[in-house]
């Protein structure tokens, strides 16, 4: 293991706490405070990852999570950013993008085949023939994955928290620290976040050469710590900006804080940008700031003998720091013909380092043994900035450091709606127009010198505090001018090579020539090149590639960078573990008062919206189908009890209650007598069925309206809105939760109920469709004679806290009559035998009442109801069709619909697959409709169902249903209702039973 540098003031590692871990099966040791990358680099390993497409060897590059060269997996944790993730003891790490391990990665064959994998290869190659696509897709998916999902690992939950701050400061470098201190001192509640483990930003590495940085940082930290208003959060990424300053703060361990701030200071600094030359991705080639971070934060020597590629004064600071760290600097290669004129330049020359001005690194070549850099090929530049290969020479080295420019870390600014413009003085994008409540400071604002950044941060902090009404007394400092003197960035650090492998984007292995080819193919805007060449489409979203990419596109299209435009990185700015986003799911669960009893009785529950309803009651020794048929039989032959407490239950009261119901429902209710109920159907303005239920008149101005379980909330909402719009004097109250309800159904139901109520249940006193209020089992109750399942039945509504008591009492009284609880599935079959429609199952988002055979419930001759006007148009259109097509018999009777719900029965011998709901109806190979309900009816000895079919299909006509697996099953249109067509049973008239399944 290579040695660390001597202990350094301010270093981030704790030398007293060594940590053991393994990488690719080999044991290593680092220190607490190391990142995974720094711990690997100090061990002498240079090959830390493989690139995405060509599987090229990769090492530390930006060392700031601005590339994904080093992405590792630790058991179930995928795609860990090794550059910035703290080392933990016991980690078992491996690189994510290899086939058979990092060293022998079989995927590197792609590197040899690179010339056969041109830009857009996937887009072009795998479309035809279409039938082979699934095969290609499998291959591509296998090749495209990063990491492996490990389903056996224990599931992990991340927390979510809500946070509030007056001022959110993003970035704890010099300007961010100053902004936080100033805003806090002005009285604003400040949250300061930084993605690093320690605050200080550039002060912890870049200014290391001048020694003043430590003092500045200490002063700033003292101010921040002294302010009780500032809360600092380390290792926290402000990963997006959504409207109204809603910023998700992501912490790898703690999860997400949904931070809402009054104003935001973006002090995210700048991201160092690479030069583009052949093999600029080779392990050992890294950004100058990466080399500095290795030295100053982790006491790690980046390499032993380096070449420094320079285009700004930062490069000379890097050179001096390298020398102090004991690195031999073989050459400084300055892209600028004038070189560096500052004191730093002089210091480097004084140190005896060879400086080549007006030269570039033309190519990196690998060492004879190994995959890292062995030499740099240096070429002079002509005045046009083009390399002159004929005069190139080589310099031996094991590292190349690049300091050629910066890009503003402006993703949050762009997401918040700030306008960015390209400064030709600085060669970077800077904010031109800030969005409301957004402030920028430091490098992102084009301010580079430490003391200037602090002043700029100070100013932003006070402005941000004033934005939320604090710090009115504080003076706003003067605007800090942008960086004076030579630009910190080179305008075009891009050097072509005939053999290629000059990478613009390391995430996606996008080469310079790929961008050229994209433009030749006609993708002539940055947004198109971006997508076609996958420039900036990798996990780091172009942090190290967009700037050069835009410059290259600009040059190729002879436009300015400003005209070429920017690429806005999408939320989230850094990728976020899926688990942090997913969190836990909180689904409300609603249970009726009788739920416990259902459980005891063996109910198998199903969800109906948020509700749990018994689908059926399991009986030992009987399967699902048998249990359901038992329940159906009980209702048809004896008596059954179903919990219908999930039904919507509304009360409508007041002088205009009738008027409201008339306007909401399609039927007429004015003549509905007190004590009677009537079917109620609701449509929307397009005439589409939205809900149905029963409307009971309790008094002249008091109605009780039931609705479907899943529809009642929307119905209630709409009714309360219309009350306001129409200015009606009526009150709608939602009693859905306040009442329990159960339906006692079957020919013996009257016998069961008669012993336990004060109501007169005789046919004359309480006829079919009647409603009565009285007591049932001592509980105040509303009882309605209903016929949904097609038998004599009483729907008993009681206050919710009396529900369980009533259920138990009725069950007890029913024992003598063989009562049986029945579930939703039995109820569905019972009503299907009657041909009753379930809104939402047998209707869809376009079904009008005629299509559902419910024209009888629609009264177009009343003054108004929602949907009436549209239904009148439909009716008129139907009449016109009828007149036009007088001799076309198919159209007669078809008036207002193209399709209708038809009953059918399978011509079915019991063998083969049984069709299911939503299976398609087929005729002569064409789709003519679909099944909406289907079930076996024991009463009829057939499989029956409802299906949407063309309106002209008469009883007796045949069609087919395509079941699972494609089998075609024959079906015949039959008369509806299937069972008891005269409804004599529910009216209480008929007691004798004709039942194929059994005897009463």
């Amino acid at each position, binding site marked *: 293991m290579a040695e660390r540098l001597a202990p350094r003031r301010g270093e981030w590692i704790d030398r007293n706490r060594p940590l053991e871990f393994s990488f690719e099966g080999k044991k290593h040791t680092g220190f607490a405070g190391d990142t995974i990358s720094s711990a690997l680099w100090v061990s002498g390993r240079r090959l830390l990852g493989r690139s995405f497409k060509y599987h090229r060897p990769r090492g530390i590059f930006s060392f700031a999570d601005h590339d994904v060269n080093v992405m590792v997996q630790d058991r179930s944790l995928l795609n860990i950013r090794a550059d910035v993730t703290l080392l933990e003891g016991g980690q078992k790490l491996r690189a994510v993008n290899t086939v058979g391990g990092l060293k022998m990665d079989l995927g590197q064959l792609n590197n040899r085949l690179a010339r056969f994998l041109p830009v857009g290869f996937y887009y072009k190659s795998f479309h035809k023939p279409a039938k082979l696509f699934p095969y290609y897709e499998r291959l591509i998916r296998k090749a495209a994955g990063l990491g492996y999902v490990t389903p056996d690992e224990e599931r992990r939950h991340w927390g979510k928290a809500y946070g509030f701050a007056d001022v959110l400061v993003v970035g704890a470098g010099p300007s961010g620290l100053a902004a936080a201190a100033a805003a806090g001192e002005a009285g604003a509640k400040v949250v300061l976040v930084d993605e690093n483990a320690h605050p200080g930003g550039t002060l912890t590495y870049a200014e290391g050469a001048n020694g003043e940085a430590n003092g500045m940082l200490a002063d700033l930290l003292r101010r921040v710590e002294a302010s009780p208003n500032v809360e600092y959060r380390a290792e926290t990424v402000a990963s997006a900006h959504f409207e109204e300053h809603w910023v998700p703060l992501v912490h790898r361990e703690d999860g997400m804080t*949904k931070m*809402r701030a009054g104003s935001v200071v973006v002090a995210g600094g700048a991201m160092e940008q690479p030069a583009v030359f052949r093999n600029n991705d080779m392990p050992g080639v890294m950004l100058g700031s990466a080399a500095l971070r290795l030295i100053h934060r982790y006491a790690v020597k980046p390499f032993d003998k380096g070449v420094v590629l320079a285009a700004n004064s930062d490069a000379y600071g890097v050179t001096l720091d390298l020398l102090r760290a004991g690195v031999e600097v073989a050459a400084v290669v300055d892209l600028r013909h004038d070189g560096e004129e500052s004191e730093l330049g002089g210091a480097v020359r004084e140190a005896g380092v060879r400086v080549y001005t007006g030269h570039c690194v033309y190519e990196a070549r690998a060492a004879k043994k190994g995959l890292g850099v062995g030499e740099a090929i240096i070429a002079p530049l002509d005045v046009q900035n083009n390399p002159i290969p004929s005069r190139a020479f080589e310099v031996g080295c094991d590292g190349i450091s690049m300091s050629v420019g910066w890009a503003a870390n402006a993703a949050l600014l762009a997401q918040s709606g700030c306008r960015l413009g390209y400064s030709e003085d600085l060669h970077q994008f800077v904010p031109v127009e800030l969005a409301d409540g957004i402030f920028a400071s430091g490098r992102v604002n084009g301010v580079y010198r430490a003391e200037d950044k602090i002043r700029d941060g100070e100013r932003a902090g006070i402005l941000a505090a004033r934005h939320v009404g604090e710090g009115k007394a504080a003076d706003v400092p003067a605007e800090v001018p942008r960086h004076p003197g030579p630009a910190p960035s080179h305008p075009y650090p891009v050097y072509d090579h005939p053999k290629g492998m000059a990478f613009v984007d390391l995430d996606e292995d996008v080469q310079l020539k790929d961008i050229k080819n994209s433009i030749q193919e006609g993708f002539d805007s940055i947004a198109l090149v971006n997508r076609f060449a996958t420039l900036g489409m990798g996990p780091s979203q172009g942090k190290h590639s967009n700037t050069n990419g835009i410059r290259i596109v600009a040059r190729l299209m002879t436009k300015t960078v400003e005209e070429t435009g920017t690429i806005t990185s999408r939320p989230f700015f850094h990728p976020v573990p899926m688990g942090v986003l997913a969190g836990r799911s909180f689904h409300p669960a609603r249970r009726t008062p009788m739920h416990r009893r259902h459980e005891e009785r063996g109910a198998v529950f199903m969800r109906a919206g948020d509700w749990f309803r018994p689908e059926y009651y399991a009986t030992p020794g009987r399967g699902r189908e048998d249990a359901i048929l038992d329940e159906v039989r009980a209702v048809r032959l004896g008596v059954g009890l179903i919990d219908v407490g999930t039904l919507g239950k509304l009360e409508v009261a007041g002088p205009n209650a009738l008027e409201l119901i008339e306007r909401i429902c399609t039927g007429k209710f004015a003549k509905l007598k007190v004590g009677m109920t009537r079917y109620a159907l609701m449509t929307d*303005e*397009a005439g589409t069925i939205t809900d149905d239920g029963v409307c009971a008149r309790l008094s002249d101005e008091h109605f009780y309206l039931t609705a479907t379980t899943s529809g009642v909330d929307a119905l209630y*909402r709409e009714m309360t809105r219309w009350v*306001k719009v129409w200015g009606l004097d009526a009150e709608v109250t939602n009693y859905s939760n306040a009442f329990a309800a159960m339906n006692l159904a079957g020919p013996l139901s009257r016998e069961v109920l008669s012993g336990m109520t004060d109501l007169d249940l005789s046919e004359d006193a309480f006829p079919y469709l009647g409603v009565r209020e009285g007591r049932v089992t001592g509980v105040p109750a509303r009882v309605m004679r209903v016929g949904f399942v097609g038998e004599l039945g009483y729907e008993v509504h009681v206050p919710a806290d009396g529900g369980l008591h009533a259920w138990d009492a009725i069950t007890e009284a029913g024992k003598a009559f063989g009562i049986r609880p029945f579930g939703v599935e039995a109820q569905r079959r019972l009503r299907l035998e009657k041909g009753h429609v379930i809104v939402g199952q047998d209707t869809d988002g376009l079904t009008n009442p005629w299509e559902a055979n419910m024209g009888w419930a629609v009264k177009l001759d009343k003054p108004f109801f929602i949907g*009436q006007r549209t239904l009148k*148009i439909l009716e008129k259109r139907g009449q016109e069709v009828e007149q036009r097509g007088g001799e076309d018999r198919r159209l007669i009777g078809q008036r207002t619909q193209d399709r209708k719900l038809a009953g059918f029965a399978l011509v079915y011998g019991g063998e083969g697959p049984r069709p299911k709901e939503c299976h398609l109806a087929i005729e002569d190979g064409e789709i003519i409709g679909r099944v909406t309900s289907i079930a076996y009816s024991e009463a009829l000895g057939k499989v029956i169902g409802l299906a949407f079919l063309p309106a002209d299909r008469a009883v007796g006509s045949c069609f087919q249903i395509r079941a699972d697996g494609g089998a075609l099953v024959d079906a015949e249109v039959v008369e509806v209702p299937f069972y008891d067509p005269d409804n004599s049973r529910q009216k209480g008239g008929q007691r004798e039973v004709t039942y194929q399944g059994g005897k009463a």
Partner: protein
Amino acid sequence: MKILNCPINGPRPVQEFVFGGELREMPDPDVATDAEWTDYVYNRNGAPGLRREWWYHLASGTWFVAERDTGTNDVKKTYLYGDEVEHG
């Protein structure tokens, strides 16, 4: 996460609200032509701009009107239905 200002309950997170569509006058069904009526039923104005919209505060059952710029998603003001007329 947006915050909407319910006229009854004050600022609340937008998850507590249900969008109720643009506030549009229903044409008189007895007077409107078929074309006018179907235009009302089926056509919506999708162009960005200032709109009066229905919003419903789910937790309290409050319908109100929000004036929202659908281009910028800025809510200019909120008030109970009918209040705007009274206050001019």
